[in-house]
């Protein structure tokens, strides 16, 4: 068994919000007909959750599922279970046009926590991160610090950010800069 390393070895920074590299995360890209019964069943069996509505993300005890596009979902499971989950999905959807790929090693994951998480995101994304458009249960794919990223709130004060591993170090540095103390509007 190889010694799996995340992009920054779990680095963290205590700034205006806390930035933490979240370590390795099992991630599966699943493309197919999101309206199909077989796909709904396969997703349910993989993460115990229903297919989310557009721009929605759901999480449960077994993992999470996020809506990425009209024909794409992102499934998260523990890192060491991703391969098995892909094999199960592929088997369950053998009769349907689909694609299930383990993308765990292609991604970097960060957690932002603190009252000012929205302000930190707002420094680098054109997406609406105000409470009107962005709250727990909503996922947005957009730019963050000029690179592609997806982010969602796991609570009112915590955000998960996912980007490509190739820009993981850049993203971490950008997040730390954006979270530099004294650079945000005063947060009550």
């Amino acid at each position, binding site marked *: 068994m190889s010694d799996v390393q995340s992009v920054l070895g779990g680095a963290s920074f205590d700034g205006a919000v806390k930035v933490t590299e979240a370590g390795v995360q099992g991630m599966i890209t699943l493309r197919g007909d999101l309206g199909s019964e077989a796909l709904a069943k396969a997703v349910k069996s993989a993460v115990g959750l229903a297919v989310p509505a*557009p*721009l929605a993300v759901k999480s449960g005890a077994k993992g999470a599922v996020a809506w*990425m*596009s*009209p024909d*794409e979902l992102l499934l998260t499971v523990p890192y060491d279970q991703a391969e098995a989950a892909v094999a199960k999905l592929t088997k369950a959807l053998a009769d349907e046009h689909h694609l299930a790929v383990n993308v765990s090693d292609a991604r970097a994951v960060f957690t932002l926590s603190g009252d000012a998480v929205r302000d930190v995101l707002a420094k680098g994304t*054109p*997406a*609406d991160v105000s409470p009107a458009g962005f709250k727990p249960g909503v996922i*947005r*794919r*957009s*730019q963050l610090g000029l690179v*592609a990223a997806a982010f969602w709130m796991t609570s009112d004060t915590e955000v998960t950010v996912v980007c490509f591993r190739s820009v993981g170090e850049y993203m971490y540095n950008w997040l730390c800069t954006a979270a530099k103390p004294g650079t945000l509007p005063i947060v009550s």
Partner: protein
Amino acid sequence: MLLLTCPNCGVEADETELSAGGQAHLKRFAAGSSDDEFESYLFHRSNAKGVHFERWRHSYGCGKWFLAARDTNTLEVFGTYPAQTPEPPKDLIAAIKKKRPDWKGFAK
């Protein structure tokens, strides 16, 4: 700043989240077409000052293509609609005509 609502995911996307794909509703001339048709398909585009139909891709968002009608002069957006639409929707044409009575209409 240009904001276009992506009909594939419903997001009101900022221009920086999008990629421009040029003029919409071009007829593709390929094998078997005349040299003139092929040249026109490859190189000739309308360069409207005013109402224009364009292809856009929500490249940083859902990744899907869609079409948009807007005024290149004022940046007013008249509407967006699915990429799988051979011609601009009739209600969109009607709405544009109401706002731009001098507009000559959609020409293929």
